[in-house]
């Protein structure tokens, strides 16, 4: 994931996560609060409804009782209960009862559907607000039996004779002596109950209160006018819980299979369960509305943060991208003139400017490196030219200096051959001196050429047994005769890596020097010694010859440098210069140690890693 995405994501996380968390918390807190409010409301509604129910029943009881205590009611009832129906007083009493007392209690003026006076002995309806009821028996009815002794309310039941659900209130009609005269029974209109129950608090539209009897039948309409009452059963969780005799609140699906919050209350005096329910959808509607609002806010916020984060990230990543592009281009093309050139005042701007400065500095350095390379190139070319010139010069020297020498020697010999009779001894000696000079000059040219060749020819390194090489060179330089005089000692010298021909020349020059400078000793001792150091091997050739004065030690290795008179020791002063040149070309060092009359030791080293 690139920097821009990461920064954007970080912004989103920082901004959105707290909002989302708070939203979720708020939602659940709100939901809980709503639930609590709803539960409180339902419970209180239930309480209110149950007390309304009680009040409704009690008020009807009072009405019935008030009716039963009227003196005329007692009187007429007694008349009717004792007199024969054929008696005119009976009819008068009945008419009076019905017209003056019972009918006014019936709807619409009263609260009852029907009010009847029942004979206490046979349970026959003596008088009723409804003429159709007269003569019917209520002997087996519970409200009749109970009503003989006290005011009794029979809960909701299905009346077979009436073919409908009903509720009865009965009370005794007694004379002054508390003797039962008859039983007064009033039939309640359950629609009134339904309207009381379904009267809504107005707090919610889906709220409904209804009664359910023991047999799971609706007693009142759950919502007004649907025809449920005592015709349909209901077996929801709330009803079950309520009918089991407990009060409480539950979340369940109602008879329509719609999720509701329900409060249930058992009414033991009526053997009914009071249920008040409200649809969860409605209850949670405010919370859900809040959730939708929050979701909208979070979405908008996310959008804003993403856009803002994206652009803010761009202000960071764009200069960085320019920096990367600049660095990549410099890396690819080496164009150090390339500038990032930012106006930014922040850290990234500072970085860009630092990068530009670096490129500028680098350019200066690089330019100087280029210049150096150019100079090296020129120098190399000059050196190569010089080398070629030197080669040509060497060739010329060897070729052109030899020709006159050959002429000198040749013609001297011709002089000696052709003009021998004319030359005396001195003439012949002079001729031989001329010849000798020519020969020496020829040798000198040869040595010089060897010396100069060493500086030019390439090395061909291989492994060399230095021990064997030193011994073989010594054998070549000496005769059986001279070896008798020389004590030659070789420690086992470690092998070396180098050019065999050149290192052979080193041994030749060093050993021939030792032999030469110790030739006057009766017993010459020449020792070849070697010592392995950390990075190199030190080889040495020691003799007990004439030695040299250490103050001239630094002159020993110069070309044509001689510390001894030619008459004493022949030589042209090239040998040690040649040794030094060979060893230097192998990456080693040379030096000498000596004392006049006591011999000399020449050292040279060869690096372990071989020729570079």
């Amino acid at each position, binding site marked *: 994931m690139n920097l821009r995405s990461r920064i954007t994501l970080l912004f989103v996380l920082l901004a959105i996560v707290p909002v989302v968390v708070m939203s979720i918390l708020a939602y659940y807190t709100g939901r809980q609060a709503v639930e609590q409010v709803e539960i409180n409301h339902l419970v209180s509604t239930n309480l209110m409804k149950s007390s309304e129910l009680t009040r409704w029943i009690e008020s009807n009881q009072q009405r019935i009782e008030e009716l039963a205590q009227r003196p005329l009611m007692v009187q007429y009832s007694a008349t009717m209960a004792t007199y024969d129906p054929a008696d005119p007083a009976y009819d008068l009493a009945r008419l009076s009862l019905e017209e003056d007392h019972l009918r006014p209690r019936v709807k619409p003026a009263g609260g009852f559907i029907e009010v009847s006076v029942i004979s206490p002995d046979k349970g026959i309806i003596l008088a009723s607000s409804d003429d159709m009821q007269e003569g019917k028996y209520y002997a087996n009815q519970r409200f009749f039996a109970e009503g003989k002794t006290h005011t009794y309310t029979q809960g909701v039941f299905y009346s077979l004779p009436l073919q409908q659900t009903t509720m009865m209130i009965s009370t005794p009609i007694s004379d002054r002596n508390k003797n039962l005269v008859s039983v007064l029974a009033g039939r309640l209109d359950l629609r009134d109950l339904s309207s009381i129950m379904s009267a809504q608090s107005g707090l919610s539209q889906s709220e409904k209160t209804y009664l359910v009897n023991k047999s799971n039948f609706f007693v009142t309409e759950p919502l007004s006018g649907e025809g449920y009452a005592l015709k349909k059963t209901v077996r929801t969780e709330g009803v079950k819980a309520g009918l089991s005799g407990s009060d409480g609140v539950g979340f369940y699906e109602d008879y329509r299979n719609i999720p509701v919050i329900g409060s249930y209350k058992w009414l033991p005096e009526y053997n009914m369960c009071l249920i008040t329910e409200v649809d969860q959808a409605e209850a949670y509607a405010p919370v859900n509305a809040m959730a939708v609002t929050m979701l909208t806010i979070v979405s908008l916020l996310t959008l804003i943060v993403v856009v803002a984060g994206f652009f803010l990230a761009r202000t960071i990543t764009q200069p960085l991208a320019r920096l990367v592009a600049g660095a990549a281009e410099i890396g690819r093309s080496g164009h150090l003139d390339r500038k990032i050139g930012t106006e930014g005042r922040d850290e990234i701007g500072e970085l860009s400017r630092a990068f530009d400065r670096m490129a500028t500095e680098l350019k200066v350095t690089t330019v100087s490196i280029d210049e150096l390379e150019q100079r090296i190139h020129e120098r190399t070319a000059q050196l190569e030219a010089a080398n070629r010139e030197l*080669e040509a010069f*060497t*060739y010329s020297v*060897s*070729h*052109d200096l*030899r*020709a006159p*020498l*050959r*002429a000198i*020697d*040749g*013609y*001297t*010999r*011709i002089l000696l051959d052709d003009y021998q009779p004319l030359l005396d001894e001195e003439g012949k000696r002079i001729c031989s001196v001329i*010849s000798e000079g*020519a*020969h020496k000059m*020829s040798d000198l040219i040869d040595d010089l*050429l060897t010396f100069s*060749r060493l500086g030019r020819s390439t090395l061909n390194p291989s492994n060399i047994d230095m021990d064997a090489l030193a011994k073989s060179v010594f054998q070549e330089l000496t005769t059986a005769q001279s070896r008798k005089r020389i004590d030659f000692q070789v420690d086992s010298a470690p092998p070396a890596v180098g050019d065999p021909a050149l290192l052979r020349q080193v041994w030749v020059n060093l050993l021939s020097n030792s032999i030469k400078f110790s030739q006057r000793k009766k017993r010459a001792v020449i020792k070849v010694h070697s010592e392995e150091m950390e990075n190199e091997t030190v080889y040495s050739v020691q003799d007990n010859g004439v030695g040299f004065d250490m103050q001239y030690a630094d002159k020993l290795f110069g070309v044509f440098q001689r510390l001894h008179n030619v008459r004493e020791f022949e030589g042209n002063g090239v040998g040690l210069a040649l040794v030094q040149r060979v060893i230097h070309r192998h990456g080693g060092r040379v030096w000498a140690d000596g004392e006049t009359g006591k011999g000399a030791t020449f050292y040279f080293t060869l690096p372990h890693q071989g020729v570079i």
Partner: protein
Amino acid sequence: MDDMHAVDVLLVEDNQQDAELTIRSLKKHKLANNVSVVEDGAEALDFIFCKGKYSERDIKHPPKVIFLDLKLPLVNGLEVLRAIKQDTRTKSVPVVVVTSSREDPDVKAAYELGANSYVVKPVDFESFTEAIGNLGLYWLLINQPPK
């Protein structure tokens, strides 16, 4: 004219002293009967290919051996050698490169062009005489040229 046809040795040498010493060496070994000397490369080519003042020579009678110095005026020794070895009429003629120096960078080139020998002239006269004598003996008497 007969002399010109019967050349044993062609000495190509710009140094007159060297030429004289060479001839003297050959004489010493009784080999200098028919020695011709030319002093530069151009003359050498004229002689060998019978042109210019040597146009009367017959190319069918080449020298038995050519002693060739490499450092020559006008046309250098290697050019002369190449011309000899590239021409079918002359390529079987033995060419001995005789030079003053073993440093000569052209030694290798000379051999590659088909030189039959490469000899360094010693400074010492006795050695020189001996070397030239040996060369003469070998190429004139011992060596059998193709018929």
